[in-house]
C-alpha cells in the first residue's frame, strides 16, 4: 500500500510512503540536492525515527521546501498509511 502527501508546487514537497517490510529506504529528488540533499536526508530520517517508522520505502520529490514542510508532509503520509490499516 502506498500513500502520499504534499505536491510539487513551489516550496512544497511530494512524499510517497509504502509499507513494505524491508528496512526503511529513502530516496530524495530535488533541484537543490547538491546544496541541500544531505540536509534533507537528515530531516527525513529524523522525522521517520520520531514516528517510529523503521520499515518501508519512501520517495521524496522536493521543490525547495523548508524543513518544516518536509516534516509535515512525511507525518501526513505516514498517518494516512496508518489510517488505512498499514503497519508502519
Amino acid at each position, binding site marked *: 500500500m502506498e500513500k502520499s*502527501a504534499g505536491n510539487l508546487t513551489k*516550496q*512544497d514537497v511530494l512524499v510517497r510512503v509504502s509499507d513494505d517490510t524491508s528496512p526503511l529506504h529513502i530516496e530524495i529528488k530535488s533541484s537543490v540536492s547538491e546544496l541541500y540533499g544531505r540536509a534533507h536526508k537528515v530531516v527525513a530520517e529524523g522525522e521517520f525515527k520520531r514516528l517510529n517508522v523503521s520499515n518501508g520505502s519512501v520517495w521524496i520529490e522536493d521543490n525547495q521546501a*523548508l524543513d*518544516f*514542510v518536509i516534516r*509535515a*508532509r512525511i*507525518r*501526513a503520509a505516514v498517518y494516512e498509511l496508518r489510517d488505512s490499516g498499514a503497519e508502519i
Partner: protein
Amino acid sequence: MRSYLYCPGNNPKMIINAGLYGADGLVFDLEDAVAPEKKQEARILLSQAFSEQIVPVEKSVVRINGPESDLWEKDLKELIPAGVRVIRIPKVEHPNQVQEISGVIERIESENAVTSGAVVLQCILETPLGVENVFLIGDSSSRICSFSFGAEDYCNALGIQRGQDLLPLDYPRSRIASAAAAFGYSAYDTVWGFLDDETGLKADSVRAKSLGFVGKSLIHPDQIDIVNKVFSPTSEELADARSIFEKAGLTDGGATAVNGRMVDRPVLQRAEKTIRLAEEYGVQVSKDDK
C-alpha cells in the same frame, strides 16, 4: 486588529509569506480553502508551522472546520498542542455549538499542560440563524473574544446578490456589532471578494466601520493598505480628539462645550480611544488639521 488576512492552510509558500504584507492579523484556513481530501495534511502542515514558529504566532488565528462537520475536534487536537491560541469557528448558529467546542478545548488544554482558558474563540456569524442568535451565542462561553460577519453564506441563504448595494447587509452587521459591544468583544467585518474593485472595498469598509466594526477580514494582500487606513483614526479625528481631551481636561469632569459641541463622559472616552488607536497605528495630525 484592523486587517485579518486569510491564508489557505495547505499552501506552504503562502503560509511562509503571509506575515510579510503588513496585515495586523493572519487567519490560516482549514475550512473552505482546503479540499476535503487534503484536510489532514493541511492540519498537520499548520501544526508544524506553529510549533516551529514559522508563522507569527502572536497574531495568527486558525479557522477550523465548522461545528456541523466531524473535523473540528481533530483540528483542535492537532493545533492547540502546537501553540495555536486563537480559534476562529465558522458558521456558528447556536450557543450549544460553542459550549461543546469550549468543552473539548478545556480537555485538550488540561491534557497538554496549557493554561486553562488560554485558548480563545472568534465566532463567525454567516447565516440568518447565527445572526439572530448572536446575543445567545455571545453569552455561551467566556472564551469568546470576537464576532465576525460572513456575508457570502448569509447572502446565499437570503437569495440576494453581494455587490455595490451595501444596504441589505446593514441589518446583520448592526446586530453583530451591537452584540459584540454588549459583551465587550471586537467585531470584524466580512471579506470583500471583488479583488479589482478597490473603490467598493473602501466603501464596504467605511460602512462597516460606521456600524461599529473595528476591522475586516481580507482575501488578498493588496487589500491590506486600504482596510488599515479606513479602520485607523484619520488625522482630522485625531486632531479633534486631542482638542476635546485637552480642553475638557481643564474642567471639573462634568459636561462642557468644546468648539461649540457638548462634551460629556462618553465623548471624552471616545476621544481617549481615538488617541490610543492613533498611537497604536502611528497616525499623526497633518498640518492642515492642526
